[in-house]
Structures are given as structure tokens and as C-alpha cells.
């Protein structure tokens, strides 16, 4: 099988196509996913090839989209829902946390909910309000949902297929500012890791830096910069936010004694809080410093001209690395 260089957008598009080819119960639903191919073109060309019954332009109503997806799932389909932007998932929040998340439990396992809810998330694209949110904690707190975030084209390709194959509902977070940012080589002959695993993306011995989605790139740059100062930073791409795959994280922190978590979401009650709590509980005697968090501030996402101040960046991550050291 030939290898090719793809963007994240392309990887997701290819992955969706594969999943639709593999199982004709897979349907795409959402606003503008048809002719337009979605505002980010992730579903580009799919309606043309699979028809209007499998790539469904929905009325403009997110609760309706997710709620009808629930019914489709009950009828044996595997709907993949696109939410146009992170900030527009909230009208569907009730259906997601009270229905999608609970129906399998409510029915004692009799009714499966193999629904994937794709959400382009995060900021840094110069957009207006509600287009740069990071709602992952609001889903990860909800039992019954699984939450993953991809960070690169190759993961995008595999993870979307794995999420669709999963019999549980998956909130699938796509770092929108990475859609067209970088290319990577996809080799389809390589077997991917399982979906709900984290991955060490750079090895190191002095500090463990945890990131996911859009922050993985920043984390890698920070590790590179830190290595210039003689600090060996291990970077873990969490990939799965619920469940968390703590084994590689704990193994790493036990070795390094220090951890920093970074995400675009607000610090307060963000994923960093949970990671800090778990790491501290499991590695109490290995820690040289408390787990530090570098996230979006606890303010609404600001106007885009100052979003780079809101978002954690290389310098703020490095600052946290320094603070960990100095502790």
C-alpha cells in the first residue's frame, strides 16, 4: 500500500470514507456536511459518493441532530455527528449527557449507542466568539461517554475509524487549528495502537509534559526548547481523555518526578485538575514538585486579537517547566 503525505483534515476525511466503506450502517449527520463538505471540508466529497441518505444535511438544530442520531443508533445505525464548532455543542448537551451517555446503562446493556460526535475544538484561528472553545471537561465528567482528542494527521485517520468502530459513544475532538497546518506521512500498512491509549511522543527523564489535541505541537516545541537548556522533557500525547490511560503517565512521572499538564481549556476544573489529582495520589513519594497546570485562563475566551495571550504558549509552558524545577 502506498504511503502519502496528508493533513489532519485529509486524514479525517479519508478515515470517514474508510469507515463508510467498511460498514454501510455508518452515516454522517450535521449542518452543511453535504454539498459543502462541512465548513472545514472534513466531509468533502462524501455525500457525492455515498448519497444523501448516508451523508445527511440536518436542519439547524444541534439537539435535533444528536437526538435523531440516538434514534438512528437504536435502529442499528452508527451515526457520526458533526458539530460545526465547539461553541455550538451546548444546545445538544442535554441529549448528550442524559441520553447518549446513559441509554446503555439505563437499558442494562440492551441498547448500544455507537455514536461519534465530532467537534472541531480549540482556538488560535482568529475567530469570533463561540468558535474557539474547549469543552472536553464538560464531557469527560460524564460517565458513559468516552472522550478522545487527536493531534496529528495519522492519528486523525486511524482514531476516527476506531471511534466509529467502538460500541460506546465517543466525543471526538479535532484540533481545528491543526486541520491544515502540517502534513504527515500516512502508511496504512502500520497497525495503529488501540484508541484508548496515550502515547509517549518524545522521551525524556527530567519532567513529564502532558498534552492533547492542539497543545501537543506546542508541548513538543517546549521540550525541544528545554533540551537546549539541558532539560530532558518527556512529552505524552494523552489522546484519550475519558478514560484516561494513566499507566504511561504514572510510569513517566515516577521516573521524572515532575509533571506539567497543558490544555487550552480553562484551568479551573479542566483536565489538568483531574490529572494532577490522580498523579499526586499515585506518585506522591516520587514527586519533586506539585503537578503544575498551564491552561486557558478562567475568563471567557477573549476577542481574537488577544487570544494568543489567553492560550497557553511555548513560553508559558516553559515557565511552568521552570517553576517545577525551582520548586
Amino acid at each position, binding site marked *: 500500500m502506498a504511503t502519502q503525505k496528508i493533513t489532519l483534515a485529509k486524514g479525517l476525511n479519508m478515515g470517514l470514507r474508510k469507515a463508510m466503506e467498511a460498514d454501510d450502517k455508518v*452515516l454522517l449527520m450535521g449542518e452543511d456536511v453535504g454539498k459543502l463538505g462541512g465548513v472545514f471540508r472534513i466531509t468533502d466529497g462524501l455525500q457525492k459518493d455515498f448519497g444523501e*441518505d448516508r451523508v445527511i444535511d*440536518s*436542519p439547524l*438544530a444541534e*439537539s*435535533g441532530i*444528536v*437526538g*435523531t*442520531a*440516538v*434514534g*438512528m*443508533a*437504536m*435502529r*442499528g*445505525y452508527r451515526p457520526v455527528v458533526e458539530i460545526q464548532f465547539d461553541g455550538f455543542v451546548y*444546545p445538544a448537551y*442535554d*441529549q448528550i449527557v*442524559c*441520553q447518549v451517555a446513559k*441509554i*446503555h*446503562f*439505563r*437499558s*442494562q*446493556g*440492551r*441498547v*448500544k449507542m*455507537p455514536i461519534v460526535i465530532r467537534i472541531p475544538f480549540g482556538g488560535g484561528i482568529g475567530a469570533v466568539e463561540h468558535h474557539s472553545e474547549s469543552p472536553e471537561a464538560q464531557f469527560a465528567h460524564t*460517565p*458513559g461517554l*468516552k472522550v478522545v482528542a487527536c493531534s496529528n494527521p495519522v492519528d486523525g485517520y486511524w482514531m476516527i475509524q476506531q471511534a466509529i468502530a*467502538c*460500541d*460506546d459513544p465517543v466525543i471526538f475532538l479535532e484540533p481545528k487549528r491543526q486541520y491544515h497546518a502540517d502534513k504527515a506521512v500516512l502508511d496504512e500498512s502500520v497497525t495503529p495502537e488501540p484508541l*484508548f491509549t496515550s502515547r509517549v511522543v518524545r522521551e525524556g527523564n527530567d519532567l513529564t509534559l502532558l498534552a492533547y489535541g492542539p497543545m501537543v505541537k506546542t508541548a513538543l516545541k517546549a521540550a525541544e526548547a528545554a533540551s537546549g537548556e539541558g532539560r530532558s522533557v518527556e512529552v505524552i500525547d494523552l489522546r484519550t481523555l475519558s*478514560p*484516561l*490511560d*494513566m499507566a504511561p503517565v504514572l510510569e513517566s512521572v515516577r521516573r521524572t518526578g515532575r509533571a506539567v499538564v497543558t490544555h487550552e481549556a480553562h484551568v479551573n476544573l479542566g483536565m489538568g485538575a483531574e490529572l494532577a489529582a490522580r498523579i499526586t495520589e499515585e506518585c506522591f513519594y516520587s514527586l519533586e514538585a506539585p503537578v503544575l497546570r498551564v491552561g486557558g485562563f478562567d475568563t471567557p475566551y477573549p476577542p481574537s486579537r488577544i487570544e494568543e495571550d489567553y492560550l497557553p504558549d511555548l513560553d508559558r509552558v516553559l515557565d511552568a517547566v521552570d517553576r517545577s524545577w525551582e520548586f
Partner: protein
Amino acid sequence: MTQQPTGETPGFGPNLVEVFGPSQQDGGPELIQLLTPEGERVHHPEFDHDFTAEELRGFYRDMVLTRRIDTEATALQRHGELGIWAQLLGQEAAQIGAGRALRPQDFVFPTYREHGVAWCRGVDPLRLLGLFRGVDQGGWNPDDNNFGLYTIVIGAQTLHATGYAMGMQRDGVVGTGDPDRDAAVVAHFGDGASSQGDVNEAFIFAASYNAPVVFFCQNNQWAISEPIERQSRIPLYQRALGFGFPGVRVDGNDVLATYAVTKAALQRARDGQGPTFVEAYTYRMGAHTTTDDPTRYRLSGDVESWKLKDPIARVEVYLRRNGLVDDEFLAGIQAEADDLGHTLREGCKAMPDPQPMSMFDHVYAEMTDELAAQRDAYAAYLETFEGSTH
């Protein structure tokens, strides 16, 4: 201060009241009826059906047994065997009419009050009690009887119903002309539910995709303490017209009419002609649930006047007057009801509590390591009490 329309405003076309009248006390002239409260069989130009004696006796039996389920469950709640119970008293005709109009391949999405529809679908009535007893959250398999689990979040199931109907379209079981194949969905909801965004979105999706779904609204006049006027100032069935599909109001205390109208609406859906809104105009004779106290908000006179429209009494009068039943038949049904009551009482009390550890089951189809660890830690913790009184 929150003024009601004071009349006609020049410039607003056909006076609204001419098109859509305000809700009328007795259901209004648009009310479709085949059997009057006095047990007179009347006919309707569009909706009618030749009922066999067998069918009529069947309806009667269904309603009597359904009422018994309801009174038993209410009593069981009073005796502390159930945490709460949502009574259907007065709504038997609406539910049996709707339930009996179904074909096996149709699928039903109930609220928490559709005990009569469950009965028609063949769900073991004992299974209905689990949710209210707190031993489960729905004890039947929806696919066994094509009857979904009770849904408590108001209106949520109407979207599920619409999506399920969209799935049927994709399965090619709509509009084929094969009566054993063509299928439709019924979405149940209440008058209060009609105000939820989800319900209105369900109308939009169903209309947009022309989905085979019957929106069956039991307008029992109350959403807990709020009268229907808080939710709509015109008859509810007219809501559908604004979404581009038909709506009809049927006497929900008339099992014949409810059956005939629902059957026609279902056939329309199965034929590929899309959604229909059926408003079953009825009355919640009991409290909202066993924890409610309706004396705080409604007049006993209203309840009394609705007693005269009792859904069971009118069928009994009709059956007797026409010699379709005799005392023996009626006594037989009473005996059946007593047996059912007994079974429910005993069965309910014998329902085991779930195993505490079962709460970790079925959170996911594919269990996660972290939840398994939490479960195991709790199991180990519980073991430390082994032998103690915990």
C-alpha cells in the same frame, strides 16, 4: 397585565380566530368522536371503522386491566413498595386506542406514563414497576416488543422516535406497499412537553425528512400544576399545521375514535406520507404522580365533570346495551383483573434489589480499565465489612 388578544387588528389578514379558534372547554367542534360519553355510537365522515364485537370486548378488557395495573401500583406506592408512581387514571382509552392501532413491526417511544401502551405491546406489567421501585431504570428489552424504555426528561424521546423513523426509511420499510413490512413509529408525549425545544425540533426533522412518525400527544390538560393554557393558547393539534403536516384532535376518552385516528395516522406514515400529530384530548383524573397534591391547584368540580366522560364506563354501557357482553363476561374480566392485581402485588414485593456492584456494569459496552479499578477497589472495600453489620 399579560393581556390576551383583545380583538382584531386591522392589517393582520384573516382574523386569526377564524383560522384557529381558542381551546374550547369540551374539546371543541373539531373533536373526533365515535362513542359519546353516554355510550352512543356516532359516526365521523373521515375517520371510522367497523368494530367487531371481539375488538370492542378486547378494548374493554385492555382498559379494565390497565386501570387495575394503575390502581395496584398506586396502592403499592402507598404501602412503600414503590418510590413513586405516575398514574394514568382517565387516560386508558387514549393509550389502548393508540396501542391497539399498532402493528408488530411498528415501534413505540413512551414517556413515563404509557402503561396502557406497554400492555398492548405485551410488556410484562411487573417490568413497569422496576423503575418506580428503584430496582432498575427500565426492565425490558426495547427490541423484544418494539417498545422503548420510559423516558423521563420531557420530550427527549420525540427526537429518538424521529431518528428511529429515519432509520426505517433507510431500511426500506416505508412506502413499499407490503403491509407486513411497512412500519412506523409512535412518539408519545404530553401537553406540557409540547413546549420543549426538543419536541418542536422533532416536528422540524420529521417534516424535513418526511419521516414515518406519529406524534401522539395526550393532552390531559395538566403539566403537574400548570394548565394547558400556559403551554398553548390554541388547540394543540394545530401546532402541527405550522410545521407543514396534519394535526387532528380526537376524543382521548373514546377508545374507538383514538384507535381509528391513530390507525389512519400510522397507515399514512407507513405509506410514506410522513408525520401526523394526534392530540388525544383527555384528562388526568389522578394526581401528577403519587407525590403530587392536585388540590393545591385545581378544582374538584373539574374532576367531577370529567368523571362523566370516563373512558371505560362508556364502552361498558355500549357493550351492555347492545348485548355484546353479559355479566359472566364482565365478572370474568374482574377475576382476571384480581389475578393481575395479585400477581403484581406479589411480584413487586418479591422484586430483588439490584446488586450494589451492578452499578459498574453497562456504563460502557466496552468496560474501561479505570472504571474496573474503581469497581474492584469498592469491592475490596466492601469486603472489609464482611461479617460486620454494614
